[in-house]
């Protein structure tokens, strides 16, 4: 079962850590709103299948880096459609 985890909390919030703790190897992570800050934190180890909303990266002056795939809202819809279930943290 493939779960899409959508997290909008900044990385220092407890809920962000709980999301990563609940993450299964084949799951996908989507960073939105203040969570995209995680894409710019070098010390933070993010899962392999990690995406970030481009509009939120741009609004915060960040780029996604090599390990995070930047997507638009249409891409977000596609991820939710393809996932077996979606958890919004």
């Amino acid at each position: 079962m493939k779960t899409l985890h959508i997290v909008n909390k900044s990385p220092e919030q407890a809920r962000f850590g709980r999301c990563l703790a609940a993450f299964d190897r084949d799951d996908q992570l989507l960073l939105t709103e203040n969570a995209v800050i995680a894409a710019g934190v070098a010390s933070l180890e993010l899962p392999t299948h990690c995406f970030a909303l481009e509009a939120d990266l741009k609004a915060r002056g960040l780029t996604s880096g090599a390990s995070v795939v930047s997507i638009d809202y249409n891409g977000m819809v596609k991820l939710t459609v393809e996932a077996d279930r979606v958890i919004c943290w």
Partner: protein
Amino acid sequence: MTSPTSLAFTLVITGAPYSSQAPQTALSFAQAVIAEGHSIDRVFLYGDGVHLASALSTPPSDETNWSLAWAEFLIEHGIPGVACIASALRRGVLNSEEQQRYERSAANLVTPYQLLGLGEWVESIASTSKTLYFHGEH
């Protein structure tokens, strides 16, 4: 207009406009859902999210009025908007029926929202394909 692979979404907004990004993210997502050929069964406002259904919200003219933007989107696409009645009454969002019942000075529920109980929410989640929550910062 729906293709065999199209899904129906239920969106739940729990973050308030102007103190969270939730209504903004949810609207961009909702527009993309329609653009991708899928549909939206219902939009629920719960907790602080009910502030989105207040007609009295008056941001400066050079800022987006999220209440208005959402109402226009719902009307354009014929999507039912529901504000949780228990959340709404506590936060001063009333329709004319509740205004009369509680003898308040004004009603401010934006068209096309309805004030309904959580039964509607349960029913929608049970029948929809995907439910997404748009939370505030906490």
